[in-house]
């Protein structure tokens, strides 16, 4: 028996045999629905990217003779009141949904995340003040706020992104702040200060990577909300202006003909539902994977 080492091995064995990442993946992997989310979301991204190649018709070109045709072999999802192919418009419409939701969440994540990180790290009265400002922002209902901002700025792509990002800044600030407060008290951050690291280095190199997972998970969940808000604004008539196809806008137009041509509303409605559902499944799986409570720690 090798005395010293043997004792070390028994009494002081490493408590975590696998890396956090591997365990997180195992949790994610065990949940089949999260994989459904990944695959469906991937398929929609591919559809958006390949829209020019896979859509059977031009989404904007009108064909008055073929207007309001029910689903058929030529037009799987039927045609709208201008004779445009609904399937092609659903395929192209995915682009706006994805661009607006990804861009607005990216902006919200960047702005809100920075606010939360800096606020939590500084602490004290500054933190209190910033977080109270975030609470004020949180007391604006997202749809109403988005609606008014877009109405003021005018409905176009950039303004939609700004409006939706604005509604999500406060939640991201909160999500980034909570772990920052815990992490800045951890000994490895104190060690960094004792070693003379700058605040910027401590925040960017030692705190940020440790909360990135949580923030990104919330990002995927909030993206589902962003898709819904964009669709809702478009449905109210505050989306990207026609003739650019958007799912919410298509429902808005089709709603007038709901009695005669329900397919105008049904297919884009299903498209929104599928994308939001996929994002929620994906986000749920990611959240379980990064939730320490579910890892049995």
């Amino acid at each position, binding site marked *: 028996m090798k005395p010293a080492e043997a004792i*070390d091995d028994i*009494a002081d064995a490493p408590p975590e045999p696998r890396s*956090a990442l591997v365990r997180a993946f195992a949790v994610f992997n065990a949940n089949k629905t999260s994989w459904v989310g990944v695959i469906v979301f991937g398929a929609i991204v591919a559809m958006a990217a390949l829209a020019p190649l896979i859509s059977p018709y031009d989404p904007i070109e009108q064909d008055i003779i073929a207007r309001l045709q029910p689903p058929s072999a030529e037009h799987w999802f039927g045609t709208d009141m201008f004779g445009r192919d609904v399937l092609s418009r659903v395929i192209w419409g995915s682009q706006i949904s994805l661009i607006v939701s990804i861009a607005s969440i990216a902006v919200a994540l960047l702005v809100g995340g920075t606010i939360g990180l800096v606020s939590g790290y500084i602490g004290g009265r500054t933190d209190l003040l910033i977080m109270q400002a975030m609470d004020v922002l949180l007391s604006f209902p997202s749809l109403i706020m988005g609606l008014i901002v877009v109405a003021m700025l005018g409905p176009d792509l950039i303004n939609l992104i700004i409006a939706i990002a604005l509604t999500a800044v406060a939640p991201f600030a909160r999500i980034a702040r909570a772990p920052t407060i815990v992490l800045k008290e951890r*000994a*490895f951050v*104190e*060690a960094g200060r004792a*070693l003379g690291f700058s605040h910027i280095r401590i925040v960017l190199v030692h705190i940020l990577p440790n909360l990135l997972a949580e923030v990104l998970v919330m990002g995927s969940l909030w993206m589902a909300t962003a898709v819904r808000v964009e669709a809702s604004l478009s449905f109210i008539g505050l989306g990207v202006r026609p003739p650019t196809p958007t799912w919410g806008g298509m429902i808005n137009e089709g709603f007038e003909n709901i009695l005669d041509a329900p397919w105008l509303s049904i297919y884009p409605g299903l498209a929104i539902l599928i994308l939001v559902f996929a994002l929620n499944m994906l986000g749920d799986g990611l959240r379980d994977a990064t939730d320490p409570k579910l890892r049995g720690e």
Partner: protein
Amino acid sequence: MASGNATETVLSVKGLSKTFVTKRGFPNPVTVTVRAVDDVSFAVRAGEAFGLVGESGCGKSTTGRALLRLIEPDRGAVTYRGQDVLAASGAELRALRRKLQIVFQDPYASLNPRRGIGETLAEPMRVHKMGDRAQIAERVKSLLAEVGLPPSAADKYPHEFSGGQRQRIGIARALSVDPELIVADEPVSALDVSIQAQVLLLLRDLQARRGLSYVFVAHDLGVVRFFCQSVAVMYLGRIVESGPVEEVFNQPAHPYTTVLRQASPVPDPRAKSIAVRIEGEVPSAANPPQGCHFHPRCPNAMPVCKTVYPAWTQLTPTRGVACHLHTPAGS
């Protein structure tokens, strides 16, 4: 004074104080003032391990952090080799950071879980521009060897190591900037007993090899007796007794030291002691008793102890105590 003189004082702490103000209670919060460190003074000589010992909550860890300015003290002076630590800023402070380092209690919280060990050890050297990439890589290897870890450890992550190994990595990180003094904040108390001795021997080995001084914060008297040359005993934010380890623990001058010694297990079974019961709860530092803080638990309490905090009395040039039993008559 020439450096290397064994009796030279390197770190001098005078009147260090830190008060925490918190609001407690819901829905009607009350402001609570905790004098975590109250007028603490001591001196650490070159190459010495100076122990700060006391029960949890006595302010010993806060003292260790305050003298590194990880917590900004409210009052007092900290001088390192003639340099004012509390006034330093900018480049001066960065230079001091290299000389004064810290090793933490919790080996799990003290390493960034998302950074490889090599990166953790190289980063301080890069920040302080201690050589080019190759030199730093070389120094990472020698640091790992110095604390008894294989070179392959550099490519691993904290979770792949045991508590004792992580503590060795924490020590290597402190050593990476070639410090002269290390504040060791309960460096072994979170470790399994069988590992404690290994880490203590490593620290003692480094003390001899590098000529390091330590401020060794601990609650375990046995560990302090083994590791330190001098010791200060703290109770509710104040130092109640200080002096050479053997003298303080063999002939305690303060009743609290006596009580502490009897409460801790004695390694020698023949040395039977009269059990002195610690009476009463540890009072909160938020609300210390009037007079001598220790009087409610003190077996020797006198009427004067309830009203007057005892003045510091120097018993010998190296020993001092704050207790009315030793206060010169008349004061």
